[in-house]
């Protein structure tokens, strides 16, 4: 037995939210379970009830219709990462999704779960931040839509109320010239949590750049890059500029995966690799 709890498979979001409300924080949404069940096993949490939402059909849908892409809460990460449209339009997200855990884990783990778990090292978070994602949340009383950045409050703390669940994550459509990418440093090449992870999106026409960094603060951090970049400027200049912003914004700690100093040292290295990918034009520069 992985824990002592009750289990119910709900057929609708309403049914799920009602149960969450009824249990006043002692019930948990159960989708992929790859964080939740491990936490239960390790005695990090002891819910009375698991509310299985995988039977709610709309939550299993991934649609990439223009203008927005909508990813239901129960779509596994492999499905997201292997989706050709996502890989093309939201490259950073596809890459991030495929970097989480092992292949087996990604057949269960969901995007909603990855962000709701709110680990500072959540791999999908930097991608969602730079892609300007927003999150559809439902509670007993009603629904709300929040930018992804408002989901993360702290280490393993999200802004959902006890009766709320994420129903989907939306990625707005972007300009044709928008490129995004994701990069992650691990200890081993097989599955691992991030030492640092980083995503960027760049509108190659306007130079609007977004960069987000994970595993370097209590939440994933979207950098404040106020003015557009000059895509044809030497990469060193771009890196120096963004690195300064990054070093001021992050608050890395020493942990088992790496020291704060190593993390700070990797930032410009990965910025360079990321920016190089982002400024590259089809058919070369």
């Amino acid at each position: 037995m992985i824990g002592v709890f009750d289990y119910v498979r709900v057929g609708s979001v309403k049914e799920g939210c009602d149960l969450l409300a009824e249990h006043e924080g002692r019930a948990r949404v159960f989708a992929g379970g790859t964080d939740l069940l491990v936490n239960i096993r390790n005695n990090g949490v002891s819910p009375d009830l698991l509310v299985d939402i995988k039977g709610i059909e709309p939550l299993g849908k991934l649609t990439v219709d223009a203008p927005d892409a909508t990813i239901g809460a129960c779509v596994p990460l492999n499905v997201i990462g292997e989706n050709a449209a996502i890989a093309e339009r939201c490259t950073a997200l596809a890459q991030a999704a495929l970097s989480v855990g092992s292949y087996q884990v990604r057949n269960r783990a969901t995007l909603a779960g990855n962000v709701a778990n709110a680990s500072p090292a959540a791999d999908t978070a930097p991608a969602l931040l730079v892609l300007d994602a927003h999150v559809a949340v439902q509670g007993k009383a009603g629904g709300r839509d929040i930018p992804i950045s408002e989901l993360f409050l702290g280490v393993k703390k999200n802004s959902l109320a006890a009766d709320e669940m994420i129903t989907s994550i939306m990625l707005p459509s972007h300009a044709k010239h928008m490129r995004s990418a994701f990069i992650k440093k691990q200890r081993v090449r097989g599955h691992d949590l991030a030492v640092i992870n980083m995503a960027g999106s760049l509108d190659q026409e306007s130079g609007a750049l977004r960069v987000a960094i994970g595993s370097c603060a209590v939440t994933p951090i979207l950098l404040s890059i106020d003015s557009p970049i000059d895509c044809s400027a030497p990469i060193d200049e771009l890196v120096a500029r963004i690195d300064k912003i990054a070093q001021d914004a992050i608050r890395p700690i020493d942990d088992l995966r790496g020291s704060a100093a190593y993390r700070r040292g990797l930032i410009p290295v990965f910025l360079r690799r990321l920016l190089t990918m982002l400024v590259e034009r089809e058919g070369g520069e």
Partner: protein
Amino acid sequence: MSDGKHKYVGQPVAREDALPKVTGRAMYVHDMHLAGMIHAATLKSPHAAARIKRIDTETARNLPGVRAVLVGEDLPYRLGLYVQDKLILARGQVRYQGEPVAAVAADTLETARAACELIRVEYEPVSPVLDPRNAIKPDAPLVHEDLHTYSYMKGVFAPKPHTNIAHHQKIRKGNVDDALAESDLVVNEHFYNPPAPHVPMETHAVIAQALPGDRMEVHTSAQSPYTVRDLLSHSLGLPQSNIRVHVPYIGGGFGGKAGIHLEPLACCLSRASGGRPVKIVATREEEFGTLPSRQGLHTEITLGVTKDGKIKAFKATYVWDAGAYADYGVNIGRAAAYAGAGPYCVPNCFIDSFVVYTNKVFGTAYRGFGHLEVLWGVERAIELAARRLGIDPYEFRMNNLLREGDKTITGETITAGHGRPDLCLQAVAEAIDWGTPSAPAEKGKARGKGIAVLHKAPAMPSYTSCSAIIKLNGDGSADILISGVDMGQGTYTTLRQIAADELRIEIDKVHITWECDTAFSPYDWQTVASRFAFMGGNATIAAAQDCLRQVRETAAIALRAAPEQIACENGEAYVESDPNRRLPYDRLALGYTFGNGNSIGGPIVGHGRYIAQGLTNLDPETGQGLPAQFWTYGAHGVEVEVDTETGEIEIVNIATALDAGKVLNPKLAREQVIGGVVQGIGSALFEGLIFNRDGHLQNGSFTDHKIPTAKDIPIHTRQIFVETPQPNGPYGARGMAEHPMISVPSAIANALVEAIGVDFHTLPLTAERVYTAIHTERTD
């Protein structure tokens, strides 16, 4: 040793055990259910060092479904392979975080765990001693205050009363001080290996049942059924034949299952539960933090060399971090001393190898038995010396490797039958094109090549032995009974090959009874030390020859010839001078019956044995003696590519050469080397237990302690076998099971010197440490 034509020995014969494993039908102790079986869980100490003031088990006992609750006070039994320093459950004090202090057997595992939660322990924490370099000091707090009262294996080990020193092994050869004074260059360096976990894929598991008449029956995932029996007998005070130990398939051992671990507790819980079979399965976290690991090692080497690159003096102090209990640690300390100068000709040698208690999870046997740790320092020091002299590290090593006629540091003379470390080194150097610099790396990367040599003899008592029984069946097939364990290394397959060749029958007719059962399988010491193929092979040859003697005896009468005139081939006995007079084994295996009904002979059961030949104990003052049944030499050549921006290391190419003597099965041998090399890469790049200042393990799970995955393997590997025959080995074979892992970290670190000009002294070579070394331009 037979030197006839080999139909099977030396061939890539497939494993018999592949079929049950690939269909999921192979039963491991994890998989076993016995009638009436109940489950156990343990409560473990949260402190690295503390007095136990009170334990209250009342509430736990009353939980429905609980069948037995035990604490240290209930179990007045001492354990310890070499030093009896351990109890089954902590009593009076705890010595490491993770040490079991209480155990519950209950109808379900959930109930047992819930009951453990209800046990109240009052601790008085004391300051733990964590660094063996502090623990060895005279004023250090004692991990074992009663060390002077413990019994131990006299003549071999010597715990020092009123200290934390479980054993001190010395090598004293020649005059090191004078030799250092005469050296043109003296290199003095410190090195460190952290403690590291074995990580078998199957955690420790045992089912024990106390039977009427003070008997015990045990099913255990263990490498050494007779050691389990012997130690249970010794500690519980039962005759050996009252104890029956079964070992089915086991999911890896790597030394962590070499001795005795959960078995005594399971036995005692069964007794306390009225004789129900009690199953204990370690969780992965317990595997990391409660069950023993590889000892850590602090090394100081002082190496004196002449300016033209000859070793004059080798001085080393090895301070082993034994953790809370001595277990195999004292023997590792001993072996490290006698192997502690590497496979080199060292005229003056002074080694002190200390095995020191600390308040951490204890160390046990681990593949390589101290040799990976020792050769980390030795091969790095050798490399440093060569480079400081401006001599090619390959030439330097070649100039000093042991050759026929040289004496080792314990006074053993190298013979033609010893094996050729020089040929191993030459082979790997050629394989990686040593002497030709690496191809230029792309921007942000750096490449380099490195070499290292290795050696190991089985670290075993002078009386180590093995025996085998071969039964011929009525259909002319043969069953081998032996109690060494095949945990995937493939020895059973090689024994089948040997038996088939010796018995002159098809290998399909030779089976080896997979499960070891001390009721039926004859004695084998332990499946450790890379000695099973060697001793088991010799025992199997002897058993097969005994079978053939019986075949010839019966056949002689049946065929009316003298036994000396009977030959055996293709499963038949025949008169050599008149081959038309012949009988297949199936007419002889259960006796022979004449036409009129008269019968002679009887069931043919052959037995064979082998005991270590000519080994001696080491002189306690000088370490001189003959500890080694054989030495296996080897070398690695590696090319690495370093991402200089992140510190990540890619193993582009690694070539490994071993002088394993006759390679009994080239396919299995290659597989063993590849697997060992990857485990060595794990030790080199990723692995090591991390403790905080309170002695609490920080990375006791797969999330936090990484081992190589399929994406972490080298781009190219190569396995080369030099086959200098071992005169007393089966068909000339010697052991090679541990060796592929040894010196892998050294070779990689030596390659890093080429690649990035950094000298590493500490493992593991994580990307962060490589990055930091590059960016601060200092040695690490």
